[in-house]
């Protein structure tokens, strides 16, 4: 079967589902971050696929660049939060961290 737009959309949906699973079922905060990265990558695949097959030029790719920039900022901030969690609670399991302040 020749590859078309639908193939890329289904691939990105599957990656999104896997990332969402990591987001809602893993305990470790860093694995939750990895799930977010998978979801953002799925979004990027969609943007670039529509940029190619939708006849929209490279606008979709420019938006994908902004998504990558925001992913970098998000990863840096989130890791700072995770390191602070570890300093304060000595764990990164998100279900054991239920106080705002120790």
């Amino acid at each position, binding site marked *: *079967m*020749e*590859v078309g*737009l*639908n*193939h890329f*959309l*289904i*691939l990105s*949906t*599957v*990656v999104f*589902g*896997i990332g*969402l*699973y*990591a987001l*809602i*079922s*893993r*305990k*470790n*905060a*860093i*694995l939750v*971050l*990895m799930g977010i*990265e*998978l979801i953002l*990558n799925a979004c*990027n*695949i969609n943007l*670039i696929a529509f*940029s*190619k*097959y*939708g*006849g929209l*030029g*490279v*606008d979709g*790719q*420019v938006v994908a*660049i*902004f998504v*990558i*920039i*925001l992913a*970098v*900022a998000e*990863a*840096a*901030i989130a*890791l*700072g939060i*995770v*390191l*602070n969690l*570890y300093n304060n609670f000595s764990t990164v*399991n998100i279900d054991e961290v239920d106080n705002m302040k120790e």
Partner: protein
Amino acid sequence: MSLYSILFYLFALIIVVSAVYVVSTKNIIHSAVSLFITLFAIAAIYVLLYADFLAITQIMVYIGGILVLLIFGIMLTSKITNLDLKTKNLSDLPAILFVAGLTGVLVFIMLTTNWKTVPEPSKNDITINAIGKLLLTDYLLPFEVASIILLIALIGAAMYSRKEKTIK
């Protein structure tokens, strides 16, 4: 089947298998290495979509930046010495059912929607020229805002993760 299709199915298989391994393995270091493979294969998918600049950006930013950052996070928050890098899952079965249902609905929507596509996909050789022009004309304001956000994130992360008091 053309070479394009074979490459697509190959990389899609790599992506799905390694992404499932990322979320299913108990060892968090294995997750990070598997995420490395996933991100590389996604860069290959970008190449198949004629997005060469995005593919290079993906490799440099995600693999060179975010993944190294994540591995640093793992190393700093786990007790490496007693090799206790295992993680546990939370409410596995409901999560799998929910995600499978949602993915099924989304795939159904993707397949049944009549997307407005062009019959002949554009095959631009080099996208850097066009992306650079767009970044400095139509997308100038988002570009500047993104740079401010990066600066804020840099200062914020440095301030936030600095130790302010002694460890209890």
